[in-house]
C-alpha cells in the first residue's frame, strides 16, 4: 500500500492507530523520506512531570530509537537525528543547550519546524529555564514553529497543575497563545491530551504533519483519529457488563463494568481501549480501575472528580439508576440518548465552568 498524504490520519481514524502502526510501519517510515533535511523538533518542558517524555520512551513499534534513526532523519543522510532540543535525552546542557534552542528558533530549515510542548503554561515566575521565563521561550518558539503540538494533558488544557485552586495560573498552550495575542498560532495548536500523552498518538501526528497534512481535529483541537470515539459507548470491552447491569466493586477486576467505582468512560473520548498502553499491554479499565477521563479539557475537575465517585449525570438524565440500565433499556437508543446528553453537556460547559468552580470551592 502506498500511504499517501491525502488521508493518512483518516485511515488511522477508521482502522485505529494500533492497527495502522502494526500494519503499515514501513510506509509510515517511508513518508518521512521526502525532503533534504532532518526534522527539526524542539521539545520544551514547562510545568511538567516529565511523564510525557517517559511515555514516548515506551513507544514500542516503532520505538524511540527507530524514530530517531529512521523517521526524524528524513533524507538528511544523518545516522540519527535528535530533536534540536529535548530536555530529557539531549547530550548538551547549559550554554550549548540554550544555543541549540535559539538556533532552532532563528534558523531557516528546509524541513518543517515542529514545536512539541510538554507541561502546562503558568503565570510569570513559576518556571524558568536557560535564564528566561518559560513563557518567553514559548512565545519565541511558537512564533517560529510551522506546527505546534501540545503533548499530554498539561500542555493541552492545563492538566493536573490547573486543578481547582490552580495556585500558579496553569493553562494549556492554546489558551496561553490566545492570551498573549497569538491567536493565529493558537488556532493551529494540535492537542494530544491524556496523562501521560500516548506515544503512538504523537508519532502518528508527527508523521502526518511532516507530510504537510494537519489531522482533522475536534472542537478541542484533538485529532479525531485518536479522540473521535467515546470510551464507554463505542469501545469498552466491559461494556456488555453495563448492558446486563453487572457492576464491579473495589478489588473485583475481572467481572463487571467499572461504572459504580467512578468510571468516567461515558464522558471520555479517547482510543485507550483499542490502542492500549505499553506495547498494547493494558489500559486502566482492564486492571480493575475506573477511567479517570484524563483526555478531557475539564479534567481533573468537573465531572471527572472525585475519581472514585460514580458519575451522576448519565443515569439521572433518564431518571434510572445504573443497575437497572441494562435491563430497562437494552436498546442502543437509550444509551445513545445518554451519550448525546453527556456530549452536549460537555460542549456547553465552558460558560458555566467558572461559576460551578467557585461554588465547589466555597462548598
Amino acid at each position, binding site marked *: 500500500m502506498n500511504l499517501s498524504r491525502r488521508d493518512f490520519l483518516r485511515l488511522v481514524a477508521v482502522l485505529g492507530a494500533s492497527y495502522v502502526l502494526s500494519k503499515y510501519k514501513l510506509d509510515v517510515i517511508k513518508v518521512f523520506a521526502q525532503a533534504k533535511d532532518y526534522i527539526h523538533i524542539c521539545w520544551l518542558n514547562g510545568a511538567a512531570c516529565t511523564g510525557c517524555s517517559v511515555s514516548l520512551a515506551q513507544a514500542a513499534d516503532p520505538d524511540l530509537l527507530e524514530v530517531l534513526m529512521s523517521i526524524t*532523519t528524513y533524507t538528511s543522510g544523518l545516522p540519527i537525528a535528535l530533536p534540536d532540543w529535548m530536555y530529557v535525552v539531549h547530550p548538551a546542557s547549559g550554554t550549548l543547550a540554550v544555543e541549540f534552542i535559539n538556533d532552532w528558533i532563528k534558523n531557516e530549515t528546509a524541513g518543517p519546524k515542529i514545536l512539541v510542548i510538554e507541561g502546562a503554561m503558568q503565570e510569570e515566575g*513559576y518556571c524558568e529555564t536557560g535564564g528566561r521565563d518559560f513563557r518567553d521561550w514559548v512565545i519565541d518558539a511558537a512564533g517560529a514553529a510551522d506546527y505546534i503540538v501540545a503533548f499530554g494533558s498539561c500542555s493541552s488544557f492545563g492538566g493536573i497543575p490547573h486543578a481547582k485552586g490552580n495556585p500558579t495560573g496553569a493553562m494549556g498552550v492554546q489558551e496561553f497563545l490566545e492570551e498573549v495575542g497569538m491567536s493565529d498560532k493558537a488556532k493551529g495548536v494540535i492537542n494530544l491530551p491524556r496523562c501521560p500523552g500516548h506515544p503512538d498518538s504523537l508519532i502518528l501526528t508527527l508523521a502526518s504533519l511532516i507530510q504537510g497534512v494537519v489531522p482533522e481535529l475536534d472542537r478541542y483541537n484533538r485529532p479525531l483519529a485518536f479522540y473521535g470515539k467515546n470510551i464507554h459507548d463505542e469501545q469498552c470491552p466491559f461494556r456488555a457488563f453495563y448492558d446486563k447491569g453487572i457492576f464491579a466493586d473495589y478489588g473485583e477486576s475481572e467481572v463487571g463494568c467499572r461504572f459504580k467505582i467512578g468510571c468516567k468512560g461515558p464522558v471520555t473520548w479517547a482510543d485507550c481501549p483499542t490502542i492500549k498502553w505499553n506495547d498494547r499491554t493494558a489500559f486502566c479499565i482492564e486492571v480493575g480501575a475506573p477511567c479517570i477521563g484524563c483526555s478531557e479539557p475539564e479534567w481533573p475537575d468537573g465531572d471527572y472528580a472525585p475519581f472514585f*465517585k460514580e458519575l451522576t449525570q448519565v443515569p439521572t438524565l433518564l431518571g434510572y439508576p445504573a443497575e437497572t440500565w441494562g435491563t430497562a433499556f437494552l436498546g442502543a437508543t437509550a444509551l445513545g440518548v445518554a451519550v448525546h446528553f453527556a456530549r452536549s453537556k460537555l460542549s456547553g460547559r465552558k460558560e458555566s465552568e467558572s461559576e460551578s468552580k467557585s461554588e465547589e470551592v466555597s462548598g
Partner: protein
Amino acid sequence: MPSFKVDPISRIEGHLKIECVIDRVPELNNEYFVKECRAPVTMFRGFEIFMVGRDPRDALLFTPRICGVCPNPHSITSAMALDDAFDAMPPPAAILIRNIEEAAYYLYDHLIHFYLLIGPELGVIMGPEYGAPILPPVAGREGLEKGIGTHYAKCVEIQRRANEVVALWGGKFPHVTNYYPGGVLVEPTLERISKTLAALVPVWEFIAITHIQDILNLIEANERLKDVTEVVLGARVGLEDIGFGNGNFLSFGMMPNIDDYESDWLDTSKRNNSLFRAGAFYDGSRHPLDENKITEDIKYSFYDGEDGLHPWDGVTIPNKDKPGAYSWTKAPRYNGEVFEVGPLARMLNTFGMEWRIPRIHPITGEDYGDFVYRVRNPKGSILDRVVARAACVLVIANKVFEYINELVSLVKEGRTEVMNNKPVPREAKGRGLWEAPRGALSHWVKISDYKISHYQCVVPGTWNWGPRDSRDRPGPGEAALQCGTTWVPRLNVIEIANALYDGWGDILAEALTRLNPKYANLNMEPTDGGEYVNATIALLVVRSFDPCLACGVHIITPSKKTYVFEVSHGLCSV
C-alpha cells in the same frame, strides 16, 4: 574568584541549574575546583495546595503526577498513607502485587539512569572498549553494528519490557491506576503472573549480566582515570574521591514481606526484614529510624513560621519578600542533621559497607558469580552512588522472582483477595514511608470531613537538593558539589577523552560534530572571567544523585530576582 553556571541541566528530571564559584588549588597543579555551589530548582506547581479539599482517594492519582519519572513510588506511598488513615491493612496478595509492580518499575528506573541519563559522561570516561556500548547510538545503525551504543539501545528495549509488567498490573506506565486504600484493584490472574514472569527474565539477564559487567568495567576504567589525574592534577583523583558528603544516610525501607507485614513493616522503627531496611546510617553504622525526627527548616525558604517542624505540623505560609530567603523548598533534616538519601543510603542501611549479591539465573539456575563491592568512600561519591544503584537493581531483580512464586502459591491456595475495602473516614490521618529510586519518600495526609485537609510530601528532591538550613548548612547536593574535589578542567571533553585513551577523543569528535559542529563545545561554560571551563565533572556529581526535581513540589526560585547568599567562609553571589 571566577564563577560559572549551567542552566538548564539536561538528562535529569525537572528544572535545575547550578551556579558555581571556582578557585585554583595550588596543590593540585593550580587547576580549578568548585569552591561554592548553589543549585536552585526553578519550577513550582503547588500540589500540596490544590490537593486540599479533594476526596482522599484522589491522592492516589494526583501524587504520581508529581513526577512522571518516578510516579509509582508516589502511588504506593500515597496508598500506604491512606491504608493507615482508612485503617485498612492490605491482604497478602495485594502486598505481593504492590511489590511486584514496584520492583518492575525500579528495574526500568535505575537502568535508564545509568544508560540514558548519566551514561554519556561515563561512556566517555570508560573509553573505546568499555565505553562505546554505553554511549548513545550517535553513529546510527552502522555504529550499532560496530558496537557503538549497543547497551544503550538494549536498555531502551529492556526498560520498556519492565514497564510492560508495570502496565500489566497498573494499566499503563507512567501513571498507574490500580492502587486503592487497603489493597489494589487488579486481580492476580495466572495470565498476568505468567506474562510477568516471561517479561522479567530478559530484564534479569540484562541487569545481572550486561549491566553488572558495565559496572565492573567502570570500576576498572576509574583506575585509568586516576592515571590521568595523577599526571594532570598531580594526585590520583578518581570518581570515588569526588562529590562526597557528611557520611549521614537515611532510608525508609521498601518491599515488605507478607508474613510479618504488621509486626515488622508497619512499625517504621523496625523494618528489619523488608528487602531494603529503614534506618539512619551515621558514625559508620545503622540506627533504627524514628519518624518523629523528620523536620523541615525554612530559614532560607520563602515561608513564615518556625524552623524544625515535623510534617504533621508543617505550615505553609508563603512570604516571597522574606529577608534572606532564596528558595521555596524547605530543608528537611533528620534529628536536626543533614542526611543524604538514595540508593547508597538504602544499600548502607541494609547491607553495610560490603555487598555480596548472587547472580543465579532465575530459570536455568546458572551461576554468573556473586557481584561483590566494598564501598570506596563512606561519605559517598560519584562512583559509590552509581555502583549502589546497580547493586539495588540487582537485589530487586533477584527478589522479584520470589514475589512471583509467593503469589503463585497464594493463588493456588485460593487466597486471591486483593482488597480490604473500608469507607472513606470522616476524620483521620495517615502516613506512608517508602523508598523512591532517588531516596526516602514520605506522604503525610490528614482527612477532615471526608476530605483532604493537609497533605505534605517530603521527597528525595528536597532531602538532597534543599537549600541551606537553620544552621546555614548546605543540603547533600550542594555540599557534594563544593566538597573540594569537584574538578573543573579547562581541557574540553575531546581533549580529556584523548588523554584517557589515545585517539578516543577524535572518534567521539567525529561522531558528535557530524550531528552538529557545535558539539565540539559540549559542556564548556564561560566563566565571568572570560575563560571557558568544562562542567562535565560537576554534572557527573549532579547526575550521580539522579536528581528528580518535579518532586520538589513546593520549590520555586522566583524569576528576575537576584540575591546574595552569604556563607561563613566566602561570598557566593548570583
